[in-house]
């Protein structure tokens, strides 16, 4: 399969949306090896897409929008009432007004004042995250920039993605992660309630608590998995990580793993086969 520049550019566009077949990707690569213009275009197109994606994404709506619609529906009902609508229309309007009032009450209870942000979803593989404040939000593969409000609890429902927190602290969530960020300002801690996260803090530090203990990493990359059986597993890709429980502590170095359970001393470090842990993380390009 050989292609021309025009087709190559179209494949590059589809690649950004992960909508290409292996055959197309290979054809574009083969073409780009020979064509300097298309090689340069690839970087320019990807860069421009990131910029425009971030700009568009900053417009994303939150609950304030629903409140505005509810308010407008109520206004529309009042206007109809003044005109004196026919009986059938009055019933419809009454129904709409009831929806509007209920929506307004519900949203007033939920939204409150503006909540400060503590970070953002910096990348997502496409899917859904449930925010404790905003409800379920869908993300496309290209979407970035959704702010994370202070005190958020995030549950990934589909897909995997990267969260960038203030203070240059990052972690990746997979499709089964539930993480509570309400203590983030208290010593940069986050609480992993279930599933797996990959923390990467090459320049800073971060603490991850699980119901089984505390994990502290400085200038490190590490995986924390909390299983429903009560077991916490930590594996270190780079740097050093400390594990603490009420009964003791253990230092984990690069390519080592250890387990811990509530009330027990963390287990001894063992050699970690990181390939068992890093599949979904590699798909995120980390």
């Amino acid at each position, binding site marked *: 399969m050989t292609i021309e520049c025009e087709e190559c550019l179209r494949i590059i566009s*589809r690649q950004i*949306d992960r909508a290409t077949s292996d055959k197309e990707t290979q054809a574009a690569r083969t073409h780009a090896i020979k064509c300097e213009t298309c090689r340069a275009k690839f970087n320019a197109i990807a860069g*421009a897409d990131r910029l425009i994606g971030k700009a568009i994404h900053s417009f994303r709506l939150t609950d304030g929008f629903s409140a*505005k*619609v509810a308010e407008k529906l109520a206004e529309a009902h009042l206007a109809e009432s003044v005109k004196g609508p026919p009986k059938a229309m009055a019933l419809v309007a009454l129904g709409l007004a009831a929806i509007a009032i209920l*929506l307004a009450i519900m949203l007033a209870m939920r939204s409150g004042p503006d909540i400060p942000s503590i970070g953002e979803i910096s990348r997502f593989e496409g899917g859904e995250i449930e925010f404790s404040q905003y409800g*379920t939000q869908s993300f496309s593969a290209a979407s970035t920039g959704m702010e994370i409000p202070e005190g958020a609890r995030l549950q990934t429902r589909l897909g995997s993605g990267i969260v960038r927190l203030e203070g240059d602290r990052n972690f990746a969530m997979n499709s089964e992660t539930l993480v509570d960020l309400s203590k983030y300002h208290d010593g940069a801690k986050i609480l992993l309630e279930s599933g797996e996260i990959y923390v990467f803090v090459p320049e800073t530090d971060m603490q991850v608590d699980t119901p089984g203990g505390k994990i502290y990493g400085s200038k490190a990359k590490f995986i924390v998995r909390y299983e429903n059986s009560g077991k916490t597993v930590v594996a270190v890709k780079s740097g050093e990580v400390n594990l603490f429980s009420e009964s003791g502590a253990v230092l984990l170095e690069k390519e080592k793993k250890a387990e811990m359970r509530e009330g027990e001393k963390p287990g001894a470090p063992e050699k970690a086969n990181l390939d068992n842990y890093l599949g979904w993380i590699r798909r995120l390009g980390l």
Partner: protein
Amino acid sequence: MSLISKGLKDSDIISQASLGNKGAYRELLRKYSNLSLAVALARSGNRDKARAAAADAFVEGAKELGQIPESAPISPWIASLTRATAAKRMGGTRRPSLTTEAAEEKIKNAIEEADESEPMTAEKKSELSLLAFGALSDDEREALCLLHLYSNKYDEIAAAMTTEASRIDENLASARNKLAIILGPLFGK
């Protein structure tokens, strides 16, 4: 649990909403408000006007709930309502269009006017990248906004725009090619 996760189809949600089910209407808003915003943003290029037009579309939509045929898809209906409300908000005027060269020139001028001793903020870059929107066609802008705000599936975007997925592919490739030229000077700033 949401209505969607209970497995209700869009037509069920519409019929529930038209009967006054507040959860159903909320589900419609949750599922389609960013689609509406994407269409409005593509038409107006302005945050406040886009939000107002999207809200107008849902108000107009609430009045028409009982008239939607059972099998009709919702996304093109909401997109079409939004195009109309956005046009109304724009007062019948079209957003100014630019050639790729003119947009590139604007970006270059803005960079020259910026303080060179300071790195450009993310907000400033976002603001400038939206300038480039003026060089795209309505369909290119709409496809791009829907991609980033509504769905990354070309067939879902095509359904909202009542066209073929191959047209979306063309529109996105063409939009990205223009944006790469226009926004090139911003890289590394």
